[in-house]
């Protein structure tokens, strides 16, 4: 499908397709390097998001009012505003207060904070999806809240959480294209740069779409495998 589109667009662009093709072939390695950044940044953000999400998810379920409020506010804010705005405000506004921030670490922090909010909700609903009888059984054996959580609930929530987590990974990967705005050298940014020099919009963005599609497809195939493997025990 994307190939057809590229073809269709190539015609409309009214440009000899040879030039567009040359632009892509000349820049393919450069693009793949950008894809490397994309995956790398997304993966690190996801790790950060998981840690934050665990706290936020547990916090939202906590019966400590203040924790619950803070977690809810965090989750609501980052889910309620466009990621682009978050990236911009963090990069130019908040992070410079703390350190001499560079695009890549800022990107990881911004995406990490954003995905933390989504993962927080995933973890919360994963925990709530564990049968209530499980916590009752654990408590009836004399475990306290924390022991029941760590030994009984979280290991089971883990499995429930895998599929939405893979979806979040894919969403985050695609969202990382917004980091172009703060000059992170990821796939979309490199696409933007090549485009600006060549004006080959269709070829460049078509190729970028194909690369994103391949990466997300790989992740979802791996995700399905992981899910299936976990389902068997």
């Amino acid at each position, binding site marked *: 499908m994307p190939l057809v589109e590229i073809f269709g667009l190539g015609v409309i662009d009214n440009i000899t397709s040879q030039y567009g093709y040359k632009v892509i072939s000349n820049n393919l390695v450069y693009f793949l390097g950008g894809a490397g950044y994309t995956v790398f940044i997304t993966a690190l953000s996801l790790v950060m998001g998981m840690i934050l999400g665990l706290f936020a998810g547990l916090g939202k379920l906590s019966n400590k009012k203040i924790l619950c409020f803070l977690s809810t506010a965090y989750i609501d804010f980052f889910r309620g505003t466009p990621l682009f705005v978050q990236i911009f405000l963090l990069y130019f506004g908040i992070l410079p207060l703390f350190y001499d921030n560079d695009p890549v670490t800022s990107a990881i922090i911004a995406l990490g904070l954003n995905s933390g909010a989504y993962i927080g909700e995933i973890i919360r609903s994963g925990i709530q999806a564990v049968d209530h*009888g499980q916590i*009752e*059984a654990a*408590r*009836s*054996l*004399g*475990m306290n809240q924390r022991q029941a959580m760590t030994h009984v609930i979280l290991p*089971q929530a883990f499995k429930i959480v895998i599929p939405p987590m893979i979806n979040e990974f894919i969403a985050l990967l695609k969202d990382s294209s917004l980091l172009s705005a703060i000059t992170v050298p990821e796939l979309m940014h490199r696409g933007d740069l090549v485009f600006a020099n060549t004006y080959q919009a269709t070829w460049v963005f078509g190729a970028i779409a194909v690369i994103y599609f391949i990466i997300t497809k790989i992740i979802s195939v791996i995700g399905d495998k992981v899910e299936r493997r976990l389902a068997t*025990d």
Partner: protein
Amino acid sequence: MIQVIDVYKSFGQLQVLKGVNFQVAPREVVCVIGPSGSGKSTLLRCINQLEATNSGQVYIDGEELTHPKTDINQIRQQVGMVFQLFNLFPHKTTLENITMAPIKIKGINKADAEKLAMELLGKVGLTDKAHVYPGKLSGGQKQRVAIARALAMQPKVMLFDEPTSALDPEMVGEVLAVMKNLAFEGMTMVVVTHEMGFAREVGDRVVFMDEGIIVEEGLPQDIFDNPQNPRTQAFLSKVL
């Protein structure tokens, strides 16, 4: 052993326990019967404080559970509970289900915990299922593992909440047999059940609950053969 004094419990508007008084002597087996929704499970859950009471006191072995300073986790270790739907930990093998609490809570070392667990598995007739996940067990086997899991904490009291009513009929017998054995060994037990045969044969006392109060209690033969209260009579006529 267990004293329940004037316990009230409501969920929102719904009054479920309306002043329940109830004693269990050491080594006694008390069977609780009554229609659905009468508060039997809630009573059991108030006994080990899985459900906080609104008022009234619960004592186990002289300690007041309803006292705010009581370490409830400590006391729950002495009160085993078996649920209708087993509630085994599906991510752990049979053996791990049984050893988890002793290792994590009591700090017993793994080898000792496993030795005890194997003994208990022997007792419930499932030594060969030690390394199987619950998903592969039949309902009757699951419930027997659940009993072994509760026993692994060496409780002074065992609470059973309709332990056989989720089982296929041909598996009811194997679970009741394990419970009967436990009773004969002298375990203090409170059993909510619809198995009138078991109540009659094993119970030292039968308690009939309806609409949040204990309507009638007495020796099994008295309750079953000669119920005094019209509500008891109506219930038994449907069930027997």
